């Protein structure tokens, strides 16, 4: 081509950067989609020949392999800076902070978004899920390896230094005993009170590394006055709104003083027994939704309704009618 053009004073086509490095005179072929899928003449599929496909795949395989190595290398470097016993950011000034939230059980996995506990005293099927959830939750307390019985004056503090288990000590957590709950009528035997329409709800404080309850300096809040004991965290449940308060009826706290302080602080350890308390609703109205808010009480459990700190919400419906004949399923 260039020979024929010889003598022309302007031959722009010869310059190197011609049309993005492609021959500008490349004939524009009319190609249909079918042609694009498979082109017999060029032996190309999706616009590439077998060789081209091989090259390009090889290119990307090498490229991504190298990138993956780089990423994994970075990850390895990063992980090597981590302490598996203690998250880097915990305690004051971090996102998780020093203000524990509250949790409740039973929580049913099959209905995750719901905080409604709805049961029919006449229909064991209706509360089977709750009982199972509670069973499962309490199961861990049966395992007492690596735990010890803590008497008065003993606590998890004895084995924890700077948020980590002190390996120079026995390194065992205080054992949590469920006997009190059983005595109060909250055990598997009576389906945790659901059978009698007096459901037992487990309340817990969120585990925070390094957190221990602090005692009130002066006046104890009226809600827990009388029940509150120094060194522990008391609970109080109340109807969320006025009508709920009217209907909520009698609540029994097991134990009355709440969670004992000896189970704090939490640290990563082989078998930590998380302390829990129960609230038993002894006189729930029938066929009526009651919205409940439970709060924890200690000086350093801050109640913040905006951010949902120091409290937990759930709803109860106690139904009482003969179960509908269940069809297969």
């Amino acid at each position, binding site marked *: 081509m260039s020979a*024929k053009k010889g003598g022309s004073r302007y031959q722009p086509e010869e310059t190197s*950067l011609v*049309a993005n490095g492609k021959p500008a005179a490349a004939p524009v072929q009319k190609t249909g989609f079918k042609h694009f899928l498979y082109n017999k003449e060029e032996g190309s599929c999706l616009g590439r020949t077998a060789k081209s496909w091989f090259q390009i795949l090889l290119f990307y395989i090498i490229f991504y392999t190298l990138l993956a190595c780089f990423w994994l290398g970075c990850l390895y470097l990063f992980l090597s800076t981590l302490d598996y016993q203690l998250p*880097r950011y*915990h305690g004051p000034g971090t996102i998780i902070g020093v203000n524990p939230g509250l*949790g409740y059980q039973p929580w049913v996995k099959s209905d995750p978004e719901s905080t409604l506990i709805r049961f029919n005293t006449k229909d064991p099927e209706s509360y089977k899920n709750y009982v199972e959830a509670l069973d499962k939750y309490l199961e861990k307390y049966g395992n007492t390896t690596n735990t010890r019985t803590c008497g008065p004056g003993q606590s998890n503090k004895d084995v924890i230094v700077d948020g980590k288990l002190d390996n120079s000590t026995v390194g065992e957590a205080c054992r949590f005993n469920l006997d009190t709950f059983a005595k109060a009528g909250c055990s598997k035997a009576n389906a945790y009170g659901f059978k009698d329409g007096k459901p037992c709800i487990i309340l817990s404080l969120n585990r*925070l590394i390094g957190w221990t309850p602090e005692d009130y300096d002066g006046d104890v809040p009226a809600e827990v006055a009388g029940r509150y004991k120094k060194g522990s965290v008391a609970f109080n449940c109340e109807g969320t709104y006025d009508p709920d308060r009217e209907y909520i009826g009698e609540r029994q706290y097991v134990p009355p003083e709440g969670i004992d302080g000896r189970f704090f602080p939490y640290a*990563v350890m082989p078998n*930590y027994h998380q302390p829990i308390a129960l609230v038993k609703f002894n006189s729930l109205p029938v066929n009526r939704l009651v919205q409940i808010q439970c709060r924890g009480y200690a000086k350093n459990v801050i109640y913040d309704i905006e951010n949902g700190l120091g409290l937990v919400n759930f709803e109860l419906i106690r139904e009482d009618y003969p179960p509908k004949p269940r069809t297969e399923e």
Partner: protein
Amino acid sequence: MEKLKNLFSRKKKAKKDAKDFETTDHQVELSELYARFGVDPVKGLSSEAAAQKLEQYGRNQLTPPKVTPVWLLFLKTMFSGFNVLLWLGCTASCVCYAIEYSQDPWDAKTDNLYLGIVLGVVVFVTAIFQFTQERKSSTIMKSFAEMIPPKAKVLRDGKVSEIKAVELVPGDIVHVEFGDTTPADLRIIEARGMKVDNSSLTGENEPIARKPECTAVNPMETRNLAFFGTNIVEGTGVGLVILTGDKTAMGNIAGLTHKEAGKAPIHAEMHNFIRIIGIVAVGIGLTFFAISLLYKYHFLEALVFLIGIIVANVPEGIVCTVTICLTLTAVKMRKKNCLVKNLEAVETLGSTSTICSDKTGTLTQNKMTVTHFWFPEGKATYCAPGENIDPNGTTALAALIRSATLCSRADFKDPENKSVEIQKREATGDASEIAILRFCERTTGDVHVMRQANPKVAEIPFNSANKYQVSIHKRPKGPFLLVMKGAPEQIYARCSTYSRPGLPDEPVSSDFAKSFEKVNAHLGKKGERVLGFCDFELDPEKFPPDFTFDTEVTNFPLTGLRFLGVISMIDPPRPGVPEAVKLCQNAGIRVAMVTGDHPITATAIAKQVNIIRENAKVTLIVEDKDRENFRPCDGDFSVQDEALVIHGEQLKKLTDKELENIVRNHRQVVFARTSPVQKLIIVTAYQSVGKIVAVTGDGVNDAPALSKAHIGIAMGITGTEVSKSAADMILLNDNFTSIVTAVEEGRLIFDNLKKSIAYTLTSNVPELTPFLVYVVFGLPLPMSIIAILCIDLGTDMWPAISYAYEVAESDIMQRPPRDPKYDRLVNFRLLRYSYLQIGFIQGMAGFMTYAAVMADNGFRLNDLYNLRLRWEDKGINDLTDSFGQEWSFEERKCLEKCCHAAFFYAIVVVQWADLIASKMRTNSIVAHGFANKALNMGMLSTVLLCVFLLYTPFVNQMFALMPLRLRWCLIAIPYAFLIFTYDEMRRYWNRLHPQGLVFNETFY
């Protein structure tokens, strides 16, 4: 009226076979015309008849084109391109909220509503911005309308009265005089020294005499028609209105002139880009919509994913970025004398492959200038403007100059003012007379000295019948002197002797005849206008000093004169144009001349300005036989170098195939004697073979071609208002050379837009992948939609815009124009490079930072898998992390915000590296440097904005972001270095192996 409208719209539809203005009214007898219009030549039309005709023919004005209402245009902007996708996202968000609200007013997530509103606002604001920037002025018709005179003197009911010109009807008899604008197409009934300037129609501004006789079949050439909108420069006349309004010659042109929106190549490129991104966005979106439904996600959740994916995929800021980049370039071009009216036209010159240039006024100075003179036994001497010629050098020359000085009606408007350069001084008279006047002034110093010394006593002015001008002067001493000038053949025929330098006069011989003819032919071939001069000393016996000369019966001799020589002149090329044309040709742009002038003159100028190369073989297609003999090259590239000169009449007769062949294969083409419609046909022909065509022009006659071209370029100084409004760009200094700078800027901005888009698109991957892992692996959402918008419309904006100031990487004027079919603004290679390579690395940086934030707070990566459901469950207030700590819902949300902030920050850091990497497509950063101050500032602005968004109280709350710890800020930095290093290596490899595998895969 209705009928006329129909006619007008039909004309629009039938644009392809646009017709030249045609009429036969100039050929028929006047009496027949009077009868046809029912008009009494003495009394004119009656008022009733005029009123009735006004009803029938409509008002004498040009119908303005249908204007799309502004609100409709705005709506179009609102719902075009990416905005459709964003509206989709906006609607989906609102629908989500509405459904949730209807199910449970208390529990509905306001996030969706918030997002919907934000998306709506984003679309609205960007649309307003785009709209105001791109809104073009559609003022073509307005300027046509301005050409119509407000009043006309018309003979009606036997009286001459002044009426509004719009009320004229065919059959009206109007009186016109110099200074008027012709109010309609007129058939001349009477003319007294009437001359019109048809430049607004033909582009050639030379006063042409009008008279009642029909002199040509072609209505544009006959002398007995005066056209609507043209100026009467001399004399007075009476005319019969034959056509009004849209049916006039001017109306015909106006009808051919209408803007087509979106003809700019960049428009097609943006369209293509938006389509590609749209396909990718909707494709990925729908795929994951389906996947999430398969995963048994709730329909509403799947819809939210869809929104996320679409928002992540659409570069919201890109349309604004492109608009601003184009505006910035337009400002740059404005400083270089190119005023761009239509923003999209900024790039068009960069991809232009053919320039159809008008000759007069664009390539040439539109100023006749003497270039050669010759006297017997002398050689034809070239005289460059400004060069001083000694008039006393030879007596022959002195006589020639004397004759030229005296036999002239031209004079300077302000003879006393000598401070202005001669070439620039204004003068009255015919263009060639002015040229000679200037020549004489330069040679003699002051023509008035000689003129006053030799007062004129008699004169026969030039007329087309005898083709000479003669005047008789009384000399201070000696007999009367008769001087004559005219067509050289005419003058020669009247001479019996010729003057010789320093020698006595010699009788005319055959040898002399030969040399005269040779010179005459030689100059004629150069396209110059040649005038011959002779003089004669009248016998003092026969013509005593008190003799009265009679010019009517000519009581003095007009033959047997003494031949002095010839002076030739031409409208010379503007300085710099030949070089500019060559630059264009080096840049692979063909320059074709399209002119209304003579083929010979056109060819001569074409040669001078390099449109036709010196040694090229020139084929003229002027006569029918030329055309019949002509064989366009068909695949034979050797004839590419052959130059063609095509006459308008022959152009009409060429078949489509032949014309296609010519415009496709011939590099040197001159179209002469073309009409407005033919210009249009030429432009269309070039466009049909895939050329991007620029047209330059200054007259009204150029308007249709200007508006049809991909980019119409009008002249700022000499251009008519109509041509300016039909054009997309205006050369403020009328200089063709400015086009070269505009081409350069256009090419540069195309490259830079590519870089800008590559930069912007890259961040789509780190924006998109969080959603994908969220859906597929169930990780808590690593990046929020709001943060995506912060990047697309915040931190990415300035840097993307600053690419407009990036300097070229190589000599962009040494490569051919881009092939619009192959070199797209955005192609899949660019997408693959941006998405699969750089974007992938960016994604890794984001996820690494995310993983670090999570792990540092207690959630290790392996524990995040499928955590999404529990993470987002408001009912779970005690979610356990990898260290056994329990997180309340609010704390988790807070941590999530922190992740969003970290991911956002990571993208900002890697985009920094991408910004530097995308500066170059070939060169290394070492060679390219950091000269772009705007870009350097952009890097700083990104950091500041990022810090502002993350660390300012309330602001970070509004954008759901959080302050970051220094530790997390460092994590993305290695990836930034990786991107930079990888891209440097890639470019190095590409420079080493052009056309290699990596090159083909990654060079966008």
